[in-house]
């Protein structure tokens, strides 16, 4: 951090130079083929396979249980392959088909949690990626008075754990003026508590994301931007039409991790949301158990549904994932 004005830094997320790919593909690579003897191979499998079973088994059981009636979920020995699989858990959870009285009494089904989660996670992802990119571009490519001070401040706050700002933010959210029955001084109502604003707005900027995107943007040659300026493009146009398209991999990584983080976020929605209709999926599911509701088949069905978007995102963006994780070291 000695001199931030120096722009000739190789960014962490920079696209690999073209020759690196060919180099990496050289025969043999770092793991020499044919070096693994048969005995070693056998030993490897003897360790890998049982561990893999241990890792997958809980998950397999979750899926199986989500298709079982409550009676066999509680049965001993456990049922791995249900004799007659049922969709009751899913139906109960999504509030479709024939419902028990208890479910009807509940009003809406718990499916609302997923709609909430999807809405909140997508909003945060889109807004955060955009705002992060805006900031990152200014920090990487513009020279303006105060730039370094502001950037260092951003970086320094990456050291502050979320728990420290959690409590004051709860009070700040509660006192947002003009919302939730508050007057202009922010008193009287509940502000953004129990509202989607409160879930989304604090999450639309991330110092870490700005840092990563800035590192990436440093690799864009200034000449390119100058050429666009000479051609008469405005700053917003340069940002939108020149910079953003060049940063697609970094933007994708930022978006994926943000979505994952927002979908999984637990603590913040737990403390600011209380209306059961407005809970996000993780909080809804967790409270399900903490409040000792006994319909575990619904819970398991809900858990599977909550996991699906994560798996989907992972499968679609697998390549980005593994590379992004290796580079940035975040899980989201």
């Amino acid at each position, binding site marked *: 951090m000695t001199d931030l004005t120096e722009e000739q830094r190789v960014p962490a997320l920079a696209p690999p130079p073209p020759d690196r790919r060919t180099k990496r593909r050289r025969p043999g690579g770092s793991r020499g083929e044919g070096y693994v003897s048969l005995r070693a191979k056998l030993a490897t499998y003897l360790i890998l396979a049982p561990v893999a079973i241990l890792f997958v088994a809980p998950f397999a059981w979750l899926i199986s249980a989500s298709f079982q009636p409550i009676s066999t979920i509680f049965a001993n020995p456990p049922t791995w392959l249900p004799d007659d699989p049922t969709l009751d858990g899913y139906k109960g959870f999504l509030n479709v088909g024939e419902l028990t009285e208890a479910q009807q009494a509940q009003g809406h089904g718990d499916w609302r949690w997923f709609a909430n989660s999807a809405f909140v996670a997508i909003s945060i992802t889109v807004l955060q990626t955009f705002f992060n990119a805006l900031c990152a571009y200014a920090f990487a490519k*513009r020279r303006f008075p105060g730039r370094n001070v502001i950037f260092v401040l951003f970086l320094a706050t990456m050291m502050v754990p979320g728990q420290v700002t959690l409590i004051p933010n709860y009070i700040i959210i509660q006192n947002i003026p003009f919302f939730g029955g508050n007057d202009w001084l922010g008193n009287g109502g509940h502000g953004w508590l129990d509202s989607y604003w409160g879930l989304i707005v604090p999450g639309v900027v991330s110092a870490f994301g700005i840092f990563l995107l800035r590192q990436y943007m440093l690799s864009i040659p200034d000449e390119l931007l100058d050429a666009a300026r000479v051609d008469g493009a405005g700053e917003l146009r340069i940002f939108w039409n020149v910079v953003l398209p060049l940063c697609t991999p970094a933007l994708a990584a930022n978006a994926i991790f943000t979505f994952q983080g927002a979908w999984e976020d637990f603590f913040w929605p737990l*403390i600011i949301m209380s209306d059961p209709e407005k809970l996000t999926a993780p909080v809804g599911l967790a409270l399900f158990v903490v409040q000792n509701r006994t319909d575990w088949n619904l819970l398991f069905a809900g858990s599977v549904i909550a996991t699906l978007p994560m798996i989907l995102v992972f499968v679609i963006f697998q390549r980005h994932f593994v590379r992004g994780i290796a580079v940035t070291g975040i899980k989201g």
Partner: protein
Amino acid sequence: MSRAVAPEKAEAEAGTRRSRNTGLLRRVWRERSAYLFIAPGVIIFSVFTLAALMFAFYLTFHRWSIIEPDKPYVGTQNYQDMIHDERFVRSVLNTIYFTGASVPLTMIIGLGLALLLNQQIRGRAIFRTAYYLPVVTPFVVSALLWKWLYNGEFGLFNYYLLRTRIIDEPLLWLSSQNLAMPAVVLMTVWSGVGFSMVVYLAGLQAIPAQLYESAKLDGAGMWRRIRYVTIPLLRPTTLFLLVIGIIGSLQVFTQIFVMTSGGPVDRTTTMVYYMYLWAFKYYDMGYASTLAFALFAMLLVFTALQLRLFRDGGTQ
């Protein structure tokens, strides 16, 4: 980190200021669009990070209850209370226990799997996916699922351990004073190993093959190659995982909330869970903020290290 650079920067800026003092306003005006670019970020950041941080500090000197209108200044009372609070000390010890157990375990298993998977064997992709599956699963879902697996009556753990006669009578995993924390650690390791493995695999693939070959020519066996070539060269990866892991573990909350609610008798009450209790069960925001600052202090060393790692990653 910012403190270390401050003098240098100040000097450089003073120089700039002298020479361009008159032009400053003009420069600000010329670059006005840049300020618009950073405006959304700066506003959000000022409110929810900077102001929040200062407010949190302010809270630590007050008795601030959400339900009472009176919020008196109490000086350093909160800090004094904290030092003498046995439950707080307990929560610190629990957090250290959790971190000390889960971080090394996750890393060692991750490294082992990465080493095995770094060979040319069939089915690598399948194994990698299998180990990575728990990482993709939402953490709350993992915690719920494991809570069920640990269930004393119907849980799969007890069933299979009894069947294989490893234990004679069912264990009360999460409600037993001595087993609750290990049980939470085990679940955490399960969900974190895949991440360590992927990062280690990336590190392993950056090690040049020539090094292994020359070590082999020198007569080094597999174990010696791992001990004297692989592990030293993975040092940056290990350091990275260690720092990230410690930071994450010191803030453990979700699995505690879902699986044990801090029990039995505070055996799994970690620092963040204890803070949660004070803020949102006892409604004392002042004391809860003080607890948060204690965590901040513990984390500071590790986050400073983390920023260094990021910086190195950005400059190399």
